[in-house]
């Protein structure tokens, strides 16, 4: 059976003992799990519908037209209106809406009122609406999920590149290291944001959304690995010079075995402590790009876009505040986690020279 090494358990316990980091971690994971099921919490589709003896669970299934529920239109039924109608008619049919009955794209237009409108408990716009009547909370929440997915893919890419390049430099040494380092220095001095902006504006823009996002991710990744590679190079360099590596080498271990079995696992502290900062970089850059409208295409929910709108209309402070608070809060949580991880992995705790 798989067992954690006592060392890992020790680090884990140490991490748990750092209260600020630990609770930030708990909150972040809770948010993450919630956001994976966002459709059940924040959605215009009902959770369950009981109509004329049939049960419907529309959240993840295909759409139901108004006609299926006896209304006179072919497009997707408006479950909120349906609920009000049934309640008014005291119909035996009923349905259950999610806590926030809006999705991130719907425009809640109302007669003689112009958006953005302030928070409204009755209509359940808990954070108000943006300038075309979309629910700000829904956009913030779905924006969080997109940010996290983006950060996940981005970090994977950065780690792949960073590990391969950093490890190669550190392990091979010699001229590979010498020239590699110069390359990293030059590469890391290219202004990353500008490069992404130039790259994105050169895209043939009739590309599919999927490809556009993938290309954006790729450009961001290839301009972000340098920092990690530099750290990993040092770590590999250090580990490689240790005696246990030398003895493994004498015992006939291949280079690959040496790297994957002996060197890499011992650079774990570098890899783990670097992760929160990579995620922060991802969130920061994506929202900066969205703010400058070089990021995700409209109408994708995005904090940067919301921030941009809010700054332009300070008479509607709920827009700018929501976006600002969301960014600040998430970045703060992640940096607390990062801090705690760093402390948990700090070898000083275990050294005999203390």
């Amino acid at each position, binding site marked *: 059976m798989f067992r954690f090494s006592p060392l890992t358990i020790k680090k884990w316990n140490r991490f748990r003992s750092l209260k600020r980091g630990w609770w930030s971690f708990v909150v972040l994971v809770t948010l993450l799990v919630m956001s994976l099921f966002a459709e059940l919490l924040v959605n215009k589709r009902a959770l369950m519908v009981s109509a004329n003896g049939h049960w419907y669970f529309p959240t993840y*299934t295909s759409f139901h*037209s108004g006609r299926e529920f006896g209304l006179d239109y*072919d497009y997707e039924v408006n479950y909120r209106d349906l609920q009000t109608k049934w309640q008014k008619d005291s119909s035996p049919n009923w349905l259950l809406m999610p806590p926030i009955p809006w999705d991130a794209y719907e425009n809640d237009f109302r007669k003689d009122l112009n958006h953005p409108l302030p928070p409204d408990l009755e209509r359940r716009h808990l954070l108000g609406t943006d300038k*075309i009547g979309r629910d700000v909370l829904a956009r913030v929440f779905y924006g969080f999920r997109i940010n996290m997915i983006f950060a996940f893919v981005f970090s994977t890419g950065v780690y792949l590149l960073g590990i391969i390049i950093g490890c190669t430099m550190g392990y091979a040494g010699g001229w590979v290291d010498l020239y590699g380092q110069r390359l990293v220095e030059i590469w890391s001095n290219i202004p990353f944001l500008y490069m992404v902006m130039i790259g994105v504006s050169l895209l043939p*823009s*009739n590309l599919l959304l999927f490809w556009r996002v993938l290309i954006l991710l790729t450009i961001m990744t290839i301009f972000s690995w340098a920092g990690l590679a530099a750290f990993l190079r040092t770590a590999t360099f250090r580990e490689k010079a240790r005696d246990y590596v030398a003895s493994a080498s004498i015992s006939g271990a291949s280079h690959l075995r040496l790297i994957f079995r002996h060197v890499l696992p011992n650079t774990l502290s570098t890899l783990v402590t670097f992760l929160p900062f990579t995620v922060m970089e991802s969130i920061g850059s994506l929202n900066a790009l969205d703010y400058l409208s070089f990021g995700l*295409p*409209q109408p994708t929910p995005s904090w940067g876009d919301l921030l941009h709108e809010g700054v332009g209309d300070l008479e509607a402070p709920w827009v700018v505040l929501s976006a600002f608070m969301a960014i600040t809060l998430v970045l703060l949580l992640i940096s607390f986690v990062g801090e705690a991880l760093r402390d948990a992995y700090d070898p000083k705790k275990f050294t005999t020279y203390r």
Partner: protein
Amino acid sequence: MKPTIPSLLALSALALTLLPSCEAKKEASKNDVTAEVQAFYKDAKNDKGEPFYHFKTIADLPTDLQWEDGAEQQEFGSPDAKKGGTFHHYIPDYPRTLRHIGPDANEAMRGYVLDYFVLTLIGRHPNTLKPIPALAKQWACGADKKTFYFRIDPDARFSDGEPIRAENFLFTFFFMRSSYHKDPWYQEQYKKRYDAVTKYDDLTIAVTVAEAKPDALDHHAGALAPTPIGFMKQFGEDYVQAYNWKFEPTTGAYEIKESGLKKGQSVTLTHVKDWWAKDKKFYRQLFNPDRIQLEVIRDPNKVVEVFRNGEIDSFRLNLPERWHKTFADTDPLVEKGYIHKVTFFNQIPRPTYGFWVNSSRPLLNNLDVRVGLQFACNWDLVIQQVFYGDYERLNIAEEGFGEFTDTSIKARPFDPNKAAEYFAKAGFTERGADGILKNAQGQRLAFTITNSYKPLESALVVVQQEAKKAGLDLSIDTPESTAAWKRFNEKKHDLAFTAFNISVEPYPRFWEDWHSSNAYNTDGSVKTDTNNFTQANDKEVDAWITRYDKSEDLTEMKDLAWKIERRVHDNAWFIPGFASPWYRVGHWRWLKFPADFDTRTSRDFEESWAFWIDEDERKATQEAMKSGKTFEKTVKSYEQWHVK
């Protein structure tokens, strides 16, 4: 010694003080252009290869000419206008030149240097669009309908005192067709549009245009401005630099003197002393302020504050949020009657905001799909919700051309059921799991909107969400605006969201937008770099356009225009979006306007210059604000030109 930063600064400061004097020396040594002009008069040819300049005597003037002088037209200023005072306004950036032609000339300052003030041979009445006298006191049309004769007003003179004579107009062609000003567009247009110019005597000239068209007089022949020969004596290769900060003596009411330039800060225009037209009909009630002071204010938000402080006299409120939020009717300054708000309905060709449907694309080549699209676009909701209900639905692309616009054509309203009906005719009957229509081959009904206006993206998002109701999937793509235009020109879009800005013209042009020769080459391939963004291709429309363009008969042209407009509507090539039927302005109460506020074709009150400044009222208002005295709240709408 190593140069230190202070020493470098001192050096560069020295260099800067020396520079202007070097320039002056260079200028003084310049040859004069007179010989070159004479040679040009002798040799210049028109586009057809015929001699351009003709010198005749007054005896050669045709005797059967019917001279007109526009005397039957009404004045459009106000007899109550007070002369004097300073009009305070702003410019978004300090001008980079005072030239009206050449690099950097086409900027915010151009209106003040050229368009607002300079008088040409004849003017055009802004209400009737009929010719009125300007530099020419009389004019006549020749038998060929291409040659126009003008009698120049003997009083006319430039602001530097040089009298305006036939020679000044001849010189204009030399000037414009020269390459020294580095503006190839003008160089080409002056060659293409005009066939000949004839001098009969100092005060009589004839101008022959290339094509006999109804607007040949006021748009081409009569739109000629004279050039001051004395001032242009040193016109040459270095014109762009040498004349960069020299104000060309003007025929208009305002000039910029050297003392009026505060580099980087402000520009002041002063009324020409004893302006030659100050007592002439049509002009005596216009151009009332003595001075026009233009402050440079770069930040749009600062302009709002400066206006609130009364440091500028007026502020445009064309954006709905400016009208409804920044200066709401409940704003204390408005409430207390210090600032007046005005909506003025005008009649001008509207910019054509809407979707230009590329009918050469698969699916979009199907008329039923295009008509379905028309019913699937909820522009009315956009107007209601995004634009505060202020704009109106555009009905056709040629709106605002008076009797040339068929006002019985109405844009198709949003109707998901009707849209579905037409989509069904085109084979899209089933809705997929996402609610989007599919045809038997499983093809989704999905198109891309290529948007060239970043600030209007949110309006498109509304259209996009509403279109889903009709089972239509629209995605929005907003590239950088030049990239968007490139795609339109290459005809690679599905739906192009853009607008053509149309200058005030008496009749619409159809050839550019709707003639199939701008859609396909003779070998059937797609023709790029034309304005036919819809790939309109209808042989009957082509024939009508050809006849329309050749026609000199206004009634026939009107009939043809209506036919073309109706057919364009039936073919559903263009999905009309929105138009604003007015301009809006907020102004302090000391800025006064004529009783009916402005003229029919004004896009802005600065186009007609009929307003005046009441300096006594300014003082009274400022004192009233201190003492807390209030005036009547004034939020007015002038609807005499509103086409409903």
